[in-house]
């Protein structure tokens, strides 16, 4: 029983990070119908920026995160601006464009920070909480709280603000949205910016849990993408649920199938997707291709 619960606890904290990555994927997808393949690399950029400001310029962790989110958000704007001429014209080229940006970001990371990577000490130094023999890291709770807060803010933005409602409208029918005077390009730019910001949030939070290296985003990107698909690509609650599900699934397969855990994780994922191709929340409304 203790192993069971501890496994869930371990899976949930990484699951929350996967959920943040999945949110970024989903947000861009629902707005533009585009899978942003550079997303994983943006996560790495975010992780490096946050750790650089935290370690080198000695900013408080929270402030370092904010700076990282702002800078990566700007990178998201640049990506969208470059791809904008292709919007609604050549979908495949846009996809290739995001892959290209991923490679450029990867190269930039290695040029700026080198290939070796760095360990980030945890900003929360308190000892883990002991709950009936169950150990919960305080930093994990911080990660969960921030992930939850980010989700709530995102949902409020999409449902309560005019700009958010406009983005919803573009997601549903971009031609009708244009007809009623909504600037589709601006809407896309905001989606890319928020998506990149979420990636930086995920990268910055995961730094102290893992090891920041150029390879960081690759692994997180794939798991985050799988999480978005599992939850229902484009769905906000789906991304959250999918992220946590992938995290916990991963944690359990690691315990039971050892060296074959990755294989089993993705087998289970494939079976779920075969049974329910639209994912748990089955939104997947956007199809512009």
């Amino acid at each position, binding site marked *: 029983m*203790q*192993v069971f619960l*501890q*496994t869930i*606890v*371990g*899976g949930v*904290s*990484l699951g929350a990070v996967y959920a943040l990555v999945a949110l970024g994927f989903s947000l861009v997808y629902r707005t533009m119908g585009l899978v942003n393949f550079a997303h994983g690399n943006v996560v790495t950029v975010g992780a490096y920026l946050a750790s650089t400001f935290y370690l080198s310029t000695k900013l408080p962790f929270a402030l370092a995160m904010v700076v990282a989110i702002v800078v990566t958000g700007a990178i998201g704007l640049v990506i969208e601006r470059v791809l904008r001429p292709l919007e609604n014209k050549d979908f495949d080229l846009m996809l290739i464009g995001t892959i290209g940006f991923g490679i450029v970001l990867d190269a930039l990371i*290695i040029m700026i920070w*080198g*290939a*070796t*990577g*760095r*360990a980030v*000490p945890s900003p929360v130094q308190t000892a*883990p909480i*002991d709950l009936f023999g169950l*150990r919960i*890291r305080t930093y994990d709770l911080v990660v969960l709280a921030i992930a939850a807060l980010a989700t709530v803010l995102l949902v409020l933005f999409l449902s309560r603000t005019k700009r958010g409602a406009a983005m919803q409208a573009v997601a549903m029918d971009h031609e009708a949205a244009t007809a009623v005077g909504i600037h589709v390009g601006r809407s896309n730019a905001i989606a890319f910016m928020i998506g990149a910001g979420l990636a930086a949030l995920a990268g910055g939070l995961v730094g102290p*849990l*893992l*090891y920041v*290296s*150029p*390879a960081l985003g690759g*692994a997180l990107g794939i798991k985050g993408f799988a999480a978005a698909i599992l939850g229902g690509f484009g769905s906000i609650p789906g991304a959250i649920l999918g992220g946590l599900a992938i*995290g916990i699934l*991963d*944690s*359990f397969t*690691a*315990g*039971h199938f*050892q*060296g074959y*855990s*990755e294989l089993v994780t993705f087998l289970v994922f494939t079976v779920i997707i075969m049974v329910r191709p639209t994912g748990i929340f089955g939104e997947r409304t956007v199809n512009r291709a």
Partner: protein
Amino acid sequence: MVRMRATLAVLAVVLAAGCSAPGSDSEDAGSDSGPIKIAVVDAQSGQLSSLGAWELKGARLAVDEWNAQGGVNGRQIQLDVFDDQGDPTIGTNLARKIDSEGYIAMIGTAESAVTIAMAPLLKQAEIPNITSGQSPGLVATKSEFLFLNGPTSTTYDETLAKHIVDQEGIKSIAMITNNGGYGKGEHDAFLKALRSRGVTPLADQVVTADQKDFSAVLTSIRQKNPKVIFLGAEEVESGLIVKQARDLGITATFAGAAPQGTPVFIDTAGAKNAEGAIVSSPYLSNDIDEASKKFAAAYKAKFNEEAELHGAKAYDGTQILLTALKTSNVASGKQLADAIRATKHDGLLGDFAFDETGVGIFETSIGVIKGGKLVAAES
């Protein structure tokens, strides 16, 4: 005019090498003019890039020392770097590339799985290769062109088991290894060393090479309450395991081979968490003798960082290769491989004497991590 002739000569060599059929005799590559081309193949990006960076520094230092003294037989040595990203597929592509571009020998890689993948191609191309890998799988390739610049896992783990079981009398041991080339070798070698002492590990857990969360594995180990946990995984993964283990309240001592003595491991785990870890290594510190002090000083002067095991290994390996080039009068292919095998080298890791398997060093020492640094164990 002289310069132009030299350029033409180099061009001719490149063309000749480029035109030869793949796998054909590369005798022509080692022609007797122009620089001697040696390839360093190692991860320069990805999670294993710190290994690649150290190895490159060690090799660079050795080559620069020789070049400063006039090179080999009056020819300069040209050291070129290729990034294998720690990926066996990229490694095999690079094996073909260095063959077609006329490199006469290769230094690297630091990752056993990559080297094992490259070995058949290098054997076919007759390019001698001095690797920093330590998996017994390297010996199993039976390539007479493959040499190890350090001991195999068998030696590391035999020494470790001797220290833990025979000397300390600890029999309550758990194992965590990964399913990559290095981890698999460590798993088999340490298990064999334990079995030969009649010890069965309390737990034998296998993780994947890019796993990030070890809660399930560590919690089940915690319930068995071992005194020592053996780690058979690379620097970063081992560090993550130790960090998460301490967070879960595991107080056991960790033990392992080369990766557990590196700064990357200590940084990732956190110095406090890594404290007391037992390490089996052929190069414990920079202050063992005069040679290591001289090496460490030169290393520090050139790269402005502390020397460590992997740099020392690559330095030794490169010294052996260059010595063999000198004694064989810049031979290539089979002749160079034989010259390497015949080279007796008093190196930083010990006295190298290669046997027919390509292994030249058969002992390691035990160290302990104290205050964030690896020091020799008191015995």
